[in-house]
């Protein structure tokens, strides 16, 4: 019983971690219909900037907003300097759907190399004042720590905040309209270019939250978020790509599925587990848990 509960807690806490990256990917998908593999790179860079901020200010909480602003800025730059010109140039060509994917991979590689160039290919600690020691209930220490709680709160806050922006604000309406029908949106007076950049900036901010909250549970290196990118993308697909709630639910489904497979089936399928979970979900719902049936193709 204890093992079962622990497995659930492990699944939930890692699910929250996947959710944060998943949110960053869904936010970009919603605003420009691009799977942004650069998200991990952007989050790495913003986390390094957060690390620098903490080194000079000696306060994790003050470094958080720095990292988030940096993440938003980096993401906006990537959109304005690379993705927007590319979208215009590749429009109507056979590569329209996948050239952006390649561009984001290029950005990912570039940022990783840049981070290595500046900070070196080493492990760096970016620590939070929150304990990573699990809460103690009676005699037992459960595998859920204050830092995990911060991650869960972070995921929920990011999800709720952006869901509210999308649902209740004019900016949110413009973001949705611009992603579904850019041309009609422009004809309705939406400044689509600017709106897309804002969409990317939001995603960058979400990614920065992911990087800054997750890194204290492990370490920082140019490649330290690589695995999270894969889990985050799989979680986003499970959730249906469109929906922010789906991103979080997808993360939790993946986290729980992963924890249970590791515990009860074995570690021999560690890297295949994501594939197995994804196939099961997509066999039942090819458009993901919260995806629209009419969702357009990438």
């Amino acid at each position, binding site marked *: 019983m204890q093992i079962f509960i622990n497995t659930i807690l492990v699944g939930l806490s890692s699910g929250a971690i996947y959710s944060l990256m998943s949110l960053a990917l869904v936010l970009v998908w919603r605003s420009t219909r691009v799977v942004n593999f650069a998200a991990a790179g952007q989050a790495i860079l913003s986390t390094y900037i957060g690390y620098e901020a903490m080194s000079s200010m000696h306060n994790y909480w003050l470094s958080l907003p720095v990292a988030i602003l940096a993440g938003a800025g980096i993401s906006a730059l990537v959109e304005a300097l690379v993705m927007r010109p590319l979208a215009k140039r590749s429009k109507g060509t056979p590569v329209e759907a996948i050239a952006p994917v390649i561009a984001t991979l290029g950005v990912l590689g570039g940022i990783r190399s840049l981070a290595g160039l500046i900070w070196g290919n080493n492990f760096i600690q970016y620590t939070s004042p929150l304990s990573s020691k699990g809460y103690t209930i009676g005699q037992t220490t459960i595998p859920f720590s204050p830092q995990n709680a911060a991650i869960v709160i972070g995921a929920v806050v990011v999800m709720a905040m952006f869901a509210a922006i999308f649902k209740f604000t004019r900016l949110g309406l413009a973001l949705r309209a611009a992603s579904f029908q850019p041309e009609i949106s*422009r*004809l309705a007076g939406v400044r689509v270019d600017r709106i897309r950049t804002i969409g990317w900036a939001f995603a960058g901010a979400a990614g920065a939250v992911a990087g800054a909250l997750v890194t204290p549970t492990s370490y920082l290196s140019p490649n330290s978020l690589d695995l999270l990118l894969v889990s985050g993308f799989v979680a986003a697909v499970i959730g249906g790509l469109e929906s922010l709630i789906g991103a979080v639910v997808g993360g939790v489904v993946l986290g729980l599925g992963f924890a249970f497979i590791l515990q009860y089936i074995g570690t021999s399928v560690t890297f295949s587990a994501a594939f197995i979970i994804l196939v099961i979900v997509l066999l039942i719902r090819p458009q993901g848990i919260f995806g629209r049936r*009419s969702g357009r193709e990438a």
Partner: protein
Amino acid sequence: MTLKVEQLHVQHGAITAIEDLTFTINEGELVTIIGSNGAGKTTLLRALSGLLPVSAGSASWKGESILGKRPEDLVRRGIVHVSEGKAVIPELTVAENLELGGIWRKDKSDVAAATAEVLELFPRLGERLKQGADTLSGGERQMLAIGRSIIARPQLLLLDEPSLGLAPLIIEQIFAAIDALRHRLGLTVVLVEQNAMSALSIADRGIIINLGRVVGSGSAQALLNDPALRSAYLGY
């Protein structure tokens, strides 16, 4: 105080879609552009609304050039283009589609007023405000597209094939609505139509283009009565 198009030239890759097009439309006029498929009608509207780059010539609205401007800026100057094919966003609700029409406007009370006018004109939209636009019929979608454009308080309305794919009864309703709107709001309207009969029935004038050039023009009445034009472009 007019829409003035002079020697307009639009290149579509290697194909010249519009070649040396010149015409003038006076304020408050409803002019229909008639021509066969591929004559360059849609290209013309897309060029005027800033969706397509123009290779030569000039176009001005109220004395100011409208070329080289982005569509979202032209909307702010009162030039609103309702593009071909029931230009609504199916993923949004009816209410959201309407809200989008006034999203850039500062005067929120007037947006509310304009929205009320649209709902009065098209009561069926009012009944379906919370529904997704993808649940609407073709005619309702066209109403929604036109309604959204009205909330922007346009001066010059560019309408592309509002009758496309609609049943005759619905077409009649749509054209009646367009006619009512232009009179009530004092709109200048450029109406591109294949369905020349219906278009001419509400238009003041018609301009006939073919292969990117103006090949004829005249009052709606005169065009309807010109047998040569009738057989060549009106199909009867």
